[in-house]
């Protein structure tokens, strides 16, 4: 045996089994509270509601699972206009939120200095310091028949205009579609502004300079650079506005009349007043399915996976 000068191959020292397993399990331990919460407060109620929606009976005699799918059809038939209104109001409110929120988010992200930026952001979320209900009740006062808003709009003859297109009726705002849309827009505006702001704020201002340097006028720069890069924020903002707005019932309840009722009002009525639990549960599921469908189509169109 001669001496050999080759270096010994590096030894792979295997981790003992126990610590490795423990390390792998860490991720699951971290997920546990979230999963537990989801199971108890989402999965279980979902299954329960699904079964309720297929039961028949009454509160007095008790409900029995009879796989009665016709409830879905009947509910949809009865509440089809509620669905139409829900999605129409939510869509208009979402568009309004985008129209109001985008310029604001843009200003905060690019035009405001650091101090003003924080002030404006606090103002954006300030309404959350008061309850949703109180804020919506305040709108009832703001839009009341004798109030300053209505009298101003009347003196400008704007209400004749909105009356003509069916947004308002009888020269009043309260208890009209306009009031409900206004309430929805107001209540969900921060959910639009915040994601828009975060996506705009990440944009390097040098990209604007580069676009200008490459012969893009300011508006072209916005159209070709700023807006496309902010699209993930637009998608997030519209979803965060549209989804809760289409399921909302407070605004329609407080600011609308029975003819502005949305699906949420229907579900509430069936659950709490009529006590027809199967119909209420079926309505909830129809609403969920429709929203999921629309969101899927929307995400496909917006092609978010293409964006950074």
């Amino acid at each position, binding site marked *: 045996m001669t001496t050999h000068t080759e270096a010994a191959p590096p030894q792979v020292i295997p981790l003992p089994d126990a610590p490795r397993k423990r390390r792998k399990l860490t991720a699951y331990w971290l997920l546990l509270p979230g999963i537990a919460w989801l199971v108890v407060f989402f999965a279980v109620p979902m299954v329960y509601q699904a079964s309720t929606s297929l039961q028949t009976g009454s509160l007095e005699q008790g409900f029995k699972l009879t796989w009665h799918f016709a409830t879905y059809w009947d509910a949809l038939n009865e509440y089809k206009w509620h669905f139409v209104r829900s999605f129409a109001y939510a869509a208009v409110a979402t568009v309004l939120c985008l129209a109001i929120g985008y310029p604001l988010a843009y200003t905060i992200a690019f035009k405001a200095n650091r101090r003003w930026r924080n002030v404006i952001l606090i103002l954006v979320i300030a309404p959350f310091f008061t309850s949703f209900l109180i804020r919506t009740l305040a709108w009832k006062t703001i839009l009341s028949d004798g109030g300053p808003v209505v009298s101003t709009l009347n003196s400008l003859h704007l209400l004749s205009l909105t009356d003509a297109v069916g947004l308002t009726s009888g020269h009043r705002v309260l208890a009209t579609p306009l009031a409900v849309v206004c309430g929805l827009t107001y209540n969900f505006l921060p959910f639009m502004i915040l994601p828009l702001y975060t996506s705009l704020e990440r944009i390097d201002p*040098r*990209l604007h*300079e580069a676009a*200008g340097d*490459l*012969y893009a006028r300011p508006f072209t720069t916005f159209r070709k650079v700023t807006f496309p*890069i902010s699209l993930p924020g637009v998608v997030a903002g519209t979803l965060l506005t549209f989804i809760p707005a289409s399921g909302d019932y407070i605004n329609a309840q407080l600011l609308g009349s029975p003819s502005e009722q949305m699906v949420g009002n229907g579900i509430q009525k069936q659950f709490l007043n009529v006590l027809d639990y199967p119909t209420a549960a079926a309505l909830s599921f129809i609403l969920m399915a429709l929203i999921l469908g629309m969101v899927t189509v929307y995400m496909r169109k917006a092609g978010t996976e293409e964006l*950074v």
Partner: protein
Amino acid sequence: MTEQLRDAATAGGDVRLTGIGKTYGDFTAVHPLDLTVPQGSFFALLGASGCGKTTTLRMIAGLEEPTTGTVVIGGQDVTVLPPYRRPVNTVFQSYALFPHLDIFENVAFGLRRRGKKDVKKQVEEMLDLVELGPMARRKPHQLSGGQQQRVAVARALINHPQVLLLDEPLGALDLKLRRQMQLELKRIQTEVGITFVHVTHDQEEAMTMADTIAVMNGGRVEQLGAPAELYENPATTFVANFLGQSNLIPAEVTGRSGDDLLLSAAGVRLTVPRSRCATEATRIHLGVRPEKITIAHASATVPEGRNRISGTVADSSFIGVSTQYVVRSESGQEIAVFEQNMERDGRIAPGAPVVLHWNPAHSFGLDASQAIDAGTGEETA
């Protein structure tokens, strides 16, 4: 492509800055300065950060409005024109590539904004020029730093600007890639003949690439000239220290002999040609570059007519091509010496008594009223 770019270049003209200055409130970023960048030249604005070089560049680009003065490009006064109407394009620091567009669309951006035809052909040719043809459909974040840098150059050059502005374009690259890109940019510039105005804080980069360098300090141009001219004849202590390394020895003018000034530096008699002394003052800093000095054992004979200083080696470090010595003279002054490693084992050990000598024509005299450590990066500001 190259021919088209050449046509654009010859159609352009000089960049002429007249009394251009920029102040932000109380702070003067750029003192009113006059600067002419001749057409077709590779011009570097060199200085430490905050010296006003980037502000000057941005005023040429139209991204910053000058407080005073005018910008004329190719005979056209563009001072009040917005960036998108100026015949210049910029390569931004950290490139500012559009993250949502692929490489092809990034490069095509300028052409599309001006409604140009055969975009496809031009972009493909340009991508070939910067050797990125196969990357056309990638997104910027899928490219390496060097590749992104070339995209930024291509995106600007494709518009055939009269002037290409480069704002520290190599700052984000590692040293090796930076050297490579310097040569690459120089090659492109020679090939297309467009005027390049290049902002950098790296003196080696400026000297490698530029025909003319303007050294800026504190919002003013300290000196302007060809790299060799600036290196051999620095006009201020800042330039002497910032561009390469200099030994500055405080000395007093004691008399004249023919074309030479006789000096006394702490008792040591030295000379400097009068033509190489930028001042009439009697107290000067005598400058000499470390590589101009010959180091020899104290016993060695020094040829006639050379400046000589004796001292002891305080420190020596071997860096491959050369050995760097720090020699402490008898009066306590530290003098750096670079000695080419031509002979083996020629190294002189620390502590050894040595004599330093150099040709007086390789030294320069600067007014001693300036801070001796300006531009070293260690100055007591």
